[in-house]
């Protein structure tokens, strides 16, 4: 399939090129041999990415990043300015002991050591984060399912310390957990299987895979994952973060080039750094930029020595967790094939959450998994467990068996966790004899479409792809981060709010993760609350046609999709 579409594109391009050849025949100079039209990148006023290469996409690929209104941007900067001024004032008062300082202090004995932190390092934490700290790390005391129970906290000293009142906030609608398919459950087949496994195996392993911690359960899981992904072989690891940071160094090293998306997760960045390869960053999901980097890299070789690169590895994610955007995989694969680079695809958020069969972004575009060299993903999100995997060709996995840092030095995966993944994965695949998995997948995609459409209609600025269950809602101003989180909790809805440094400084946002476990009533309740808070905080920034019916607007696609 992919090869077809890719070659189609290449052929199309070739035809196009011959035409150009004729035109420019005079001097024999060929102007453009790039797969994707090269233009100088600038942030367009309205980034509504309609698929540029229609040949590559089977369905409409709509991704929108509405531009920040100028006034909002100015006010946001002003907000940070005011906070900073007050921060300095407070620091001054603390220095002169007018204000009590709650920060932990260095021991007397070690006062003459080199300070462990530089003072300005913690300025942001002390003066900005501390004001709204109650929106994070909220302790929960139930299953992180569609509804959860939160431990009530109060702070006697403006968030420096918290006390638990002993009360429980019951049945808070959970819009924050990455529970895409609703497998975070304490009843049902998954939980039962995990209990059984606990009784039989216990919870720990106390050894590494290469030594004596290679259980039959792990083997079973790896075979299943390989089948699920449609790859030759796979390997599972105990932590998703470490899967990236400990395996990338095994794949590439000095003399290699890593092309990494600017919004890649920290674990990918860390892995790339640990590998010792040269790292170049391309603009988020921008294929022209990626192609330019690829061409330049191959043409110019390594800096200073000018030797050709040993290999080029492209690091991308399936769904970007802060933007809600979906990787332009067909284009990446076409590029990767043309320039003989290798592709490392991190499906932390997309596995289970995308595609008609839940097999992630590859399935979503209907591509061939063998076109992706390294399929990586985590079990934390859709499978309601923990850990990560790498799938690919047999040679790759064999090599990793010997050289993966975590196979040699890290304890292997806990047996009940392994069992949870096996059971939930079988459920998604329909191998448990039910259609439960398929129903969940449909429910998720329905919920996503509904939730995104309603938010859009209300006039919020929503980032990302229409099919992505990660829904960022833009808040922009720092004061609204705290206000939104608190107001939503007052209405019994738990949301995630994020600001700098997880996002660019002016693009603070709230993020919702839609789950298959959410019922329509829950979503409606959440939406009503969001609308209410949105009015209260004046968050409905969007200037787009809300009930629009423009020719190629996303809604026409959505409606046809719903039918």
């Amino acid at each position, binding site marked *: 399939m992919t090869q077809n579409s890719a070659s189609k594109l290449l052929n199309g391009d070739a035809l196009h090129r011959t035409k150009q050849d004729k035109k420019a025949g005079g001097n024999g100079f060929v102007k453009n041999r790039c797969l994707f039209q090269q233009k100088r990148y600038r942030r367009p006023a309205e980034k509504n990415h309609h698929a540029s290469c229609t040949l590559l996409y089977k369905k409409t690929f709509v991704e929108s990043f509405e531009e920040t209104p100028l006034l909002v941007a100015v006010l946001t900067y002003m907000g940070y300015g005011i906070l900073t001024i007050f921060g300095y004032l407070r620091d001054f008062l603390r220095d002169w002991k007018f204000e009590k300082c709650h920060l932990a202090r260095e021991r007397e004995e070690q006062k003459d050591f080199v300070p462990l932190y530089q003072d300005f390092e913690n300025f942001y934490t002390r003066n900005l984060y501390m004001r709204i700290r109650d929106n994070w790390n909220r302790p929960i005391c139930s299953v992180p399912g569609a509804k959860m129970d939160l431990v009530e906290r109060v702070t006697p000293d403006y968030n420096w310390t918290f006390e638990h009142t002993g009360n429980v906030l019951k049945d808070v609608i959970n819009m924050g957990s990455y529970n895409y398919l609703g497998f975070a459950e304490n009843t049902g087949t998954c939980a039962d299987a995990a209990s059984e496994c606990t009784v039989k195996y216990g919870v720990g392993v106390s050894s590494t895979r290469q030594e004596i911690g290679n259980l039959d359960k792990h083997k079973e899981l790896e075979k299943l994952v390989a089948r699920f992904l449609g790859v030759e072989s796979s390997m599972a690891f105990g932590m998703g*973060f470490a899967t990236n940071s400990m395996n990338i160094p095994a794949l590439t090293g000095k003399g290699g080039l890593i092309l990494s998306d600017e919004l890649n997760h920290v674990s990918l960045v860390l892995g790339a750094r640990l590998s010792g390869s040269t790292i170049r960053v391309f603009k988020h999901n921008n294929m022209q930029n990626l192609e330019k980097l690829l061409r330049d890299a191959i043409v110019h070789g390594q800096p200073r020595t000018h030797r050709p690169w040993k290999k080029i590895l492209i690091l991308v994610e399936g769904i970007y967790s802060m933007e809600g955007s979906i990787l332009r995989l067909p284009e990446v694969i076409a590029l990767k094939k043309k320039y003989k680079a290798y592709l490392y695809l991190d499906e932390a958020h997309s596995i289970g959450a995308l595609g008609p069969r839940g097999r992630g972004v590859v399935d979503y575009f209907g591509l061939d998994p063998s076109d992706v060299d390294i399929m990586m993903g985590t079990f934390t999100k859709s499978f309601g467990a923990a850990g990560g995997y790498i799938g690919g060709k047999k040679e790759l996995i064999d090599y990793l068996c010997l050289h993966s840092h975590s196979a040699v030095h890290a304890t292997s995966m806990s047996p009940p966790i392994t069992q949870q993944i096996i059971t939930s994965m079988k459920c998604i695949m329909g191998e448990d004899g039910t259609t439960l998995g398929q129903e969940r997948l449909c429910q998720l995609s329905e919920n996503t479409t509904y939730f995104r459409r309603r938010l859009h209609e209300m006039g919020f600025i929503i980032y990302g792809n229409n099919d992505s269950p990660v829904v960022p809602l833009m808040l922009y101003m720092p004061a609204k981060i705290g206000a939104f989180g608190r107001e939503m909790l007052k209405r019994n809805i738990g949301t995630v709010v994020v600001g700098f440094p997880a996002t660019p400084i002016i693009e603070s946002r709230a993020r919702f993760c839609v789950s298959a476990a959410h019922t329509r009533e829950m979503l409606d309740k959440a939406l009503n609350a969001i609308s209410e808070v949105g009015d209260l905080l004046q968050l409905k920034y969007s200037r787009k046609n809300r009930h629009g019916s423009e020719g190629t607007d996303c809604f026409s696609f959505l409606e046809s999709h719903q039918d």
Partner: protein
Amino acid sequence: MYFHYCGIPILIFFCERVKIYRRNNAISHNKLLFQCFYNRCSAPAYHLILEGILILWIIRLLFSKTYKLQERSDLTEKEKEELIEEWQPEPLVPLVSKDHPSLSYDVVTGPPSHRIIVNGKECINFASFNFLGLLDSERVKLKALSSLKKYGVGTCGPRGFYGTFDVHLELEERLAKFMRTEEAIIYSYGFATIASAIPAYSKRGDIVFVDEAACFSIQKGLQASRSFVKYFKHNDMEDLERLLKEQEIEDQKNPRKARVIRRFIVVEGLYINAADICPLPELVKLKYKYKVRIFLEESMSFGVLGEHGRGVTEHFGVNIDDIDLISANMENALASIGGFCCGRSFVIDHQRLSGQGYCFSASLPPMLASAAIEALNIMEEDPGNNIYIHKNKCILPSSLIYGGFCRTPGLKTVGEPLTPALHLQLENSTGSRTNDLKLLRAIVDYSLDRQIALTLARYLDKEERFLPPPSIRVVVTVEQTQEEMEKAAQCIREAAVKILK
């Protein structure tokens, strides 16, 4: 590297002209410009035109687009296309031969507990780090089950975003209380604990003094920190002091810089690769003498050393507040998953925003946290008598564990009598690592056939900073009886006699 290669000679030319004027007319500097202009007016026309053209040329050069040298490759698109066509990358991974000795892992069927089934053979486990035997504890299992009933399996989020469960807070509190420190922080993976903790404090430009035998996760943490790393000889305090003195001299040369360079000593309590204990009291002395902070990794010693199992600090009676950061995993003695760091709040709290493995990773599944809490309960219930030490002291004379293996011909035992994980190395190496490993593997296989499960200590040959010699790792746990010990020692002796000849 931007170049106006033509501009330079012209500028030189002009400067020369100005110098000539100054020499000829001997005028003051500020009158020079006026004088120049005046001279121009009285110059012949052809001269004016020529210089006018020169000025225009300079202006053109000033405003023309600058270019990089690198881009001046003058490659046509066609040539570029050929280069792209020509370039052949190395394969993603080198081919691994199908019969690589480490490729087929030993398969464990069923639980990896005291009685373990390796490759279909039931054996006594001398390989897992299950020091306290808590892996099989029914109490731990029951607690994990009740937690599973309440919370499900996964947490579906990092600590910041609804991934903090009440059991996490409880476990942190319990660990801090157990270790008698102000605060503790838990990670969801043992390996990531120290590997995240080091770069949270030590940044580019800082200096870290590390023991050569430090374990792999410390090495990765150091690499991630991008600090300046100085290795000292294993457990050699004189060597460490030499390095510290060198640094002191360096600091005196540049005291301004020295005021901001943080320094750390990173050591393991009980070295996994060398099976011996670090001389902590001397380290603490050096710490105050040279004002260096100590990070201590206690994965092997936590729950094993000290009267209550608090590790090396308790073993030596060192005040735990003198150690800036202690990290350990909960995968060995506690037989759960994950790791923790503990110390003073001033130090530990920083990781809640800066520890990458803490902030950006899903939190520890609550059932594993509950299991760790119950394991701590069991450890605490035996007050004044750490079960591990108790067993070592009373039931198994150290001569048995230690001496039993020591008397093996052809093999030498590496490690101190107190350590739970000993290394058996070849006395006479064959000269090639592969062959050594083959010999040792043969001993492991021989023992496996006789119901003793052993394992080779595995390393990443190319990645390790100082690759330890090949060895068999023998782990002593509380569950092994005297007979089993004797049997194991006997079995290894036989194997050695037979295989090493």
